[in-house]
């Protein structure tokens, strides 16, 4: 069963899509730079890291578009008018179905990306634990009463592992870029917590997006330090 209620403030609708879109661009920058480095080093770790951010890029793209569809009826009406009529008439695609497909795609892409980052952080060379983790998460999400609750809980667990790794990385190396990466993932970890809180306090939705966006902005700052290195 899929349940999802957006209880965010109305004034924030549209801003969430914008923040997702900018986060997507930041993820794409990290993906592109990491892939460029992989082409130089041929290190599998660089490839997997770029793949993780490539998946996050797609996840944010899908969610940004999905949010637009549900928030702005005019966008969804325009979209429905431009779909092949046979698709609309046979009920193959409706706004609700597009929304559900979009969110499920976002969940799948994000969890796959985060699981890949966890495997990289834990320095697991064998691919089998990664696929086992994906399988277990898929089963957990599918059997849960709420895709969204299970998604945010799994994201919180995975991001906690990643953040702890980056804290140790910063503690060992004590450089500005390592501090920024740790803070970035710390902020990003706050986002699923804030999403959970939206049922308790109305601004939880907005806070979640702001935390997530702040995390990616901080990651961009870390990337800029690297790119400007001579």
């Amino acid at each position, binding site marked *: 069963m899929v349940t999802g209620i957006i209880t965010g403030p109305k004034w924030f609708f549209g801003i969430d899509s914008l923040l997702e879109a900018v986060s997507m661009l930041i993820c794409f920058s990290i993906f592109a*730079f*990491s892939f460029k*480095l992989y082409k*130089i*080093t*041929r*290190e599998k*770790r*660089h490839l997997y*890291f770029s793949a993780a951010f490539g998946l996050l890029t797609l996840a944010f793209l899908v969610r940004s578009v999905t949010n637009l569809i549900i928030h702005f009826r005019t966008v969804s009406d325009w979209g429905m008018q431009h779909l092949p009529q046979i698709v609309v008439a046979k009920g193959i695609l409706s706004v609700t179905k597009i929304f559900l497909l979009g969110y499920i795609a976002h969940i799948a892409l994000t969890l796959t990306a985060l699981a890949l980052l966890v495997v*990289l*952080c834990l320095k697991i060379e064998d691919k089998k634990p990664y696929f086992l983790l994906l399988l277990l998460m898929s089963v957990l999400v599918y059997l849960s009463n709420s895709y969204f609750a299970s998604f945010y809980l799994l994201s919180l667990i995975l991001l906690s592992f990643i953040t702890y*790794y*980056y804290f140790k*990385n910063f503690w*060992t*190396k004590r*450089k500005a*870029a*390592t501090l*920024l*990466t740790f803070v970035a993932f710390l902020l990003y970890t706050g986002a699923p917590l804030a999403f959970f809180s939206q049922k308790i306090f109305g601004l939880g939705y907005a806070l979640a997006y702001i935390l997530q966006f702040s995390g990616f902005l901080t990651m961009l700052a*870390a*990337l800029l*330090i*690297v*790119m400007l*290195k*001579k």
Partner: protein
Amino acid sequence: MNLRRSKIDIVHDILKAMHDKGGRIKPTHLLYKSNLSHNRMMEYIKELLGKGLILEEKEEEKISYAITNSGLEFLANYKKLKEFTEAFGL
């Protein structure tokens, strides 16, 4: 402070040794310049050959290793590579 060289540092040292010798180096010189044991050096040589960062040349049954364009690109981007690898813990 961690005084152990990372993998990227070792690769850099190997490629720089080749570059400093005019782009080509004999194994014994590389052993001295890279500050590695023979076995470890050969492991790295094998890996760098596989990745196309260096190539093996034979002249009158004497082996030497030469840096490729990919290896030169690695050297040119070393600082960014090192900074990125450290920043993102790779």
